[in-house]
């Protein structure tokens, strides 16, 4: 609790959380719903997410840097805080389970065909456990070092893919699908909810505001570029078929005849980003549990929470069924990530004002 994250570190963590989904299955799910107009939805609903975040932080400016758990205690006592904590942990688990599942499956498919899944998962679990035990500060620092590298790769990919772009692939664009029908694009930015849980680790509200805004803009821009590149390269309905769109794009990359198979660079970015992503989430879940039950340490919780997460992740033995859970996740849970902090913030504000009047 002593360590406080500065704006850059906080922003790096959040950008990683927002954009890592884009490296995996998200572009495909967006295209499934919005066809090849999905890139517009990312931009449009990114602006909406920015608006919601601005509103939320405006409320939180007046609630004195309290996160949802502190507010729950203020509103309904310790028991209510514990209940809210458990609900938040469950939501977070369901949010990351598909990503945690996709990574070893994708690695097994494209990189380590001869390695058993158990080995891959064990390595992932060890890496995540170590990261989560180190805490948010080292994770944030690693994220801030890694972020410029990842950004450079995204820009490099976007530029080197230009010969594969065809503007006709972007059509047809359905106004309904990208606007009202594209509301699920908000799920891309749902991870901003973690910022609320990390409020006690932020230096001040100015840091929070800056980090939140910057992460939505930069993460949204990365997502926009990735989805746009995907839609420009692959026409619909084929674009709705590839499991890992970014990898599919990376396979097309080549610079002359000398530089080919550049997807290996992508695999590096993939691996580091998913380790940071999962470690941050496991840390946050442990920390939420610690705060909910007023525990002193979070480190002993890392192993059990990780085990529960992995059990949930591999609940479905087949990857095909597991993908369905991603559908449920992005279609159902993401509104809660926006509504919950706003509602708690508003109720806390009302209660604080009432108290002020009573005094």
């Amino acid at each position, binding site marked *: 609790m002593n360590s406080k994250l500065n704006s850059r570190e906080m922003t790096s963590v959040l950008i990683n959380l927002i954009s890592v989904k884009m490296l995996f299955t998200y572009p495909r799910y967006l295209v499934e719903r919005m*066809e090849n107009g999905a890139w517009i939805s990312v931009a449009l609903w990114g602006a909406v997410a920015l608006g919601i975040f601005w509103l939320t932080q405006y409320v939180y400016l007046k609630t004195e840097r309290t996160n949802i758990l502190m507010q729950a205690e203020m509103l309904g006592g310790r028991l209510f805080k514990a209940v809210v904590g458990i609900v938040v942990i469950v939501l977070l688990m369901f949010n990351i389970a598909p990503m945690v599942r996709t990574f070893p499956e994708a690695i097994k*498919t*494209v990189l*380590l065909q*001869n*390695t058993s899944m158990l*080995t891959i998962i064990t*390595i992932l679990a*060890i890496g995540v456990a170590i990261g989560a035990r180190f805490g948010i500060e080292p994770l944030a620092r690693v994220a801030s070092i890694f972020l410029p590298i990842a950004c450079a790769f995204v820009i490099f990919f976007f530029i080197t893919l230009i010969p594969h772009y*065809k503007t*006709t*692939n972007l*059509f*047809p*664009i*359905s*106004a*309904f*699908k990208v606007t009202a029908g594209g509301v699920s694009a908000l799920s891309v930015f749902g991870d901003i909810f973690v910022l609320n849980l990390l409020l006690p680790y932020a230096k001040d509200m100015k840091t929070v505001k800056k980090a939140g805004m910057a992460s939505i803009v930069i993460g949204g821009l990365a997502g926009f570029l990735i989805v746009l590149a995907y839609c420009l390269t*692959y*026409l*619909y*309905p*084929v674009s709705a*078929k590839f499991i890992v769109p970014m990898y*599919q794009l990376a*396979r*097309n990359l*080549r610079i002359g*005849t000398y530089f080919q198979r550049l997807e290996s660079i992508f695999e590096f970015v993939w691996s580091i980003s998913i380790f940071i992503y999962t470690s941050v989430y496991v840390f946050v879940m442990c920390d939420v549990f610690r705060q909910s039950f007023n525990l002193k340490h979070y480190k002993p919780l890392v192993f059990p929470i990780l085990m529960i997460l992995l059990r949930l992740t591999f609940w479905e033995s087949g990857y095909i069924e597991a993908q369905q859970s991603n559908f449920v996740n992005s279609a159902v849970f993401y509104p809660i990530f926006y509504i919950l902090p706003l509602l708690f913030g508003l109720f806390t504000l009302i209660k604080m004002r009432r108290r002020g009047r009573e005094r």
Partner: protein
Amino acid sequence: MKKVIIIILLVLLSGCTHAIEPNDLAYIVAVGMDKNDAAGAYDITLQIANPQAISGGSDEGGGEGGKKTITNLTVTSTDIFSAVNIANHIYSKDLSLAHTKLILFCDEIAKDGSIKNLSETFARSEEIRPNAFLSVVKGSAKEYLTSIEPTNELNPVKYYEVIYDVDYTGYIPKNQIKSFYVYEQSPERENVLPLSAVKKDENTSSDNNGVASSSGGGKSESGGSDGGEQSSSSGGGQGSGQGGSEGGSGQESSKPLPNAGTQNEYDGFEYMHKDYLAGEIALGGDIKTQTCGMAVFRDGKMIDECGAVEALLYNMLTGDYEMSEISYKNIKTPNDPVTVMQYRRKKPKVSVNIDDDIPKIKVKLYLEADLRTLNEGYVIEMDIDDFEEQVSAEVKAAAEKFLYKTAIEYRSDIVGFGSFIKSHFKTFDDFAQYGWEEKYPKSEFDVDVEFEVRRSGLINKKHG
């Protein structure tokens, strides 16, 4: 304790547990698929590179004329992966498809539609690269692969790249696994594949067929380029000697052409060149394998073969054309064609109007050229405007004739005009329901050509 854990982790997480040494691998550089008599089975020829012979170079005993750089294995199996599995029991190394550059299908497979299912298999595979080339072989794919003798390249992968990824002839279309799969899944465009074959014997090569019979029909014979009249005789029995310039430019040569009467000649566009098909190029020497022309598909099935000239037109219309040496008939010197180095100045501009039941398709081609060869006594510099106008008309006529052929005879939008009408629809389902496949054969075409001679080589004459 921490140090011990770190050391153990370093050893365990190094990723070497399942590593395969490059020396234990053998790379399949090309695969040929032929039809087998048994249902669902193929004779699959795997062409395996010999890295030691390639890296040794010809001076060190390897790669003598390329003969030792490749080994061919033929296995009967249901698909490529099963074939590789069987071959792994025969070959002393672990066979990998990671460097496969070419997948060939015999024309029998291409015609029965199995290629569509196979393209899905390739797209699903993480091992086969999306930029591997596909090609249809006239005859046997096995015969083609066993006849390959790379003369200038020790590395067979490089050899296939040079042959199939060529930017400076335009006589074959480029269609890799990625594109083939994508267009098979969408109604906006049909596929074409390069045509390969083993050279026929001298006795049989003079018997040109196929393209000749189909190139005579179409729009240009109706004498105009307005696109309004569609000849019902497309692909009919007329030889192409009456095509090109007669219909398109409205010009007639004052003298009979030197080789007049040969079926495959175009009078105007690509003057004096034969509309070659793979296996029929009259070449001397020992090279037996040829790649020229294209196989045309509709609904995943090969329906016809197009020759080199039509492949060139196809590339111009799709924008894949980069540059090539082209001979044009010149009215002023009808017996001496003008050869130019022609470039694509920019991508073609396409507009498709679907307001009526008959789609109206307009294409504008932007070409420029450098002079190469012409009659010594003729000062083309003084007639450059006439020549440009004449070439524009010839290309226009040839392109329109080709497009009407794709619409009326093939009923297959191989150029991909369907992709330009998608913006008229709200959703993909609306586009699919429009039924572009049924509408395309009714299309009217108007090709406009902007041709400009930019440079004259190292000579610029002002008088004869």
